[in-house]
């Protein structure tokens, strides 16, 4: 076995399936290595959200005085959760595309012919996405703090935001992995990215829904991303409240359960394919 996969996947004793946990750790390590070795795939997920935040914060700074705008110190503070979630969504797609790459280049077939525990293939990828999610969350919160956008809920709110980011990374990673497993095509995974971007835009990510109008407002208010975004935003712009924590974590958990179930179904289907 050569290539990045060879470094990390442990070889089981003959005739026995590798235990789930060691195999997951090995696959997760491989996923992380592939992320670290390909900065071109995740650096845009750090840079572009920051660029968009910088432009929006400068362009729309005066809108915080409009009636109906939530009480914030600055537009940058308002944008913190949106940037965090946007970055995590960008990064999560990478994991899904990588699993499709494994299928395209034949590594997935080699895994199938080995006694690796099957769930480890998916869980390892999601593990890599979780670690990337933690790094992204801390990076964005750090940069925003440097530019004066504080998290009013304090360290506990920061910890909750990191947990939300991790759950979202699992959610989008699960969705992308499911698409990758279903289609076996990196291009197909990438083609779903605009859909995620549209969902993000038609939400309360970049502007409060109270200041939107017409059908756009109607859709944005019913977009589950808005519900989670609002809860995460409350953690940033106001003091820590238990119901905000429950809403933010609960909705992110809901996303994760749905998308990981979808990915698991697709993995089962792929494993059974002749």
């Amino acid at each position, binding site marked *: 076995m050569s290539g990045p996969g060879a470094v990390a996947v442990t070889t089981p004793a003959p005739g026995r399936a590798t235990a789930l946990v060691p195999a997951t750790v090995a696959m997760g390590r491989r996923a992380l290595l592939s992320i670290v070795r390909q900065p071109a795939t995740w650096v*845009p997920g750090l840079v572009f959200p920051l*660029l*968009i935040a*910088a*432009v*929006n*914060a*400068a*362009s*729309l*700074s*005066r*809108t915080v005085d*409009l009636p*109906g705008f939530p009480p914030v110190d600055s537009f940058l503070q308002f944008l913190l959760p949106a940037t965090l979630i946007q970055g995590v969504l960008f990064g999560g797609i990478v994991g899904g595309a990588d699993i499709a790459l494994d299928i395209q280049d034949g590594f997935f077939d080699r895994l199938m012919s080995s006694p690796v525990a099957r769930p480890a293939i998916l869980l390892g990828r999601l593990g890599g996405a979780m670690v990337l999610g933690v790094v992204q969350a801390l990076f964005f919160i750090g940069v925003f703090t440097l530019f004066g956008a504080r998290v009013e809920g304090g360290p506990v709110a920061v910890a909750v935001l990191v947990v939300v980011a991790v759950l979202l990374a699992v959610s989008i990673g699960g969705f992308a992995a499911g698409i990758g497993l279903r289609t076996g095509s990196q291009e197909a995974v990438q083609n779903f990215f*605009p859909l995620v971007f*549209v969902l993000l*835009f*038609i939400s309360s990510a*970049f*502007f409060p829904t109270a*200041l*939107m*109008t*017409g*059908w*756009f*407002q109607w859709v*944005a208010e019913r977009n589950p991303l808005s519900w989670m975004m609002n809860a995460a935003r409350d953690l940033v712009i106001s003091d820590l409240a238990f119901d905000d924590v429950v809403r933010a974590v609960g909705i992110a958990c809901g996303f994760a359960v749905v998308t990981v179930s979808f990915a698991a179904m697709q993995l089962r289907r792929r494993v059974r394919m002749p």
Partner: protein
Amino acid sequence: MTATSPTPTAAGLTRPVGPAAGVVPVALALIRRSLLGTVRIPATFIPMIVMPLFFVIAFGGAFSSVTLLPGFPTDNILNWVAPFSVLQGASFAGFGSAFGAGRDLENGFFDRLLLAPSPRLALILGALGYSALRAFVPTVIVVSAVLLTGATVPGGVLAIAVLLLAAMGVAVSAGLWGLGVVYRTRTQRSGGLIQVGIFTAMFLSVGLVPLSQMEGTWLYWAARVNPITAVLGMARSGFVGDVTVDAVLPGVGALAAMIGLLGWFAWRGFRRLEG
């Protein structure tokens, strides 16, 4: 081409036999070839249609309340975002032409063009002519869409003509930028770099709000020196009031400067490619 008998090729080019063809006939043949390619691969048109419409919906929907800011030039957000969306689509049109040149470089067709006795300038003008023609698409799509959904055009037909001129200028500028990059990298994979340049130029401008709303921020200074700001002022002039010389002239000047500078960048890249 008067002394030649053109021979059509599968790609749609006419090949002169004998003396070198003139700049215009070769450029027109290359435009025709690109148009044929677009008909054969309609998917290449999708970003030019989808992205501007997405910008109209996203910016018009999410930021509709920015028109409530004191001093905002219009109370209809569609009037404000439509020209910006058209120019975004036009930049995609230019990007597409550069992408096509990258494909030709990768598959060897460009080498065949260089071996032919065609004027070098025509190879660039063909790509740019195609970019300018493609700029019609986002202009027609976006203007039709916003007029159907409540936008008004106080400047009338002249406003749309000025918008089209701005769109064609942006498409040509983006095309020149893209060609300059592609001639140096010789690959379609430089598409990301081209897009970063285009996006940065478009967003560090008055895309979302006018200069007066940015005062005191870093973006104010960036937008002031960004020539796209003047082009946007020109494109928007007939959508927020009457078309005026004061609005159009700086835009035309900015387009001329961009085309001159980026044209030099592309031509230098082309010469390097030949060398």
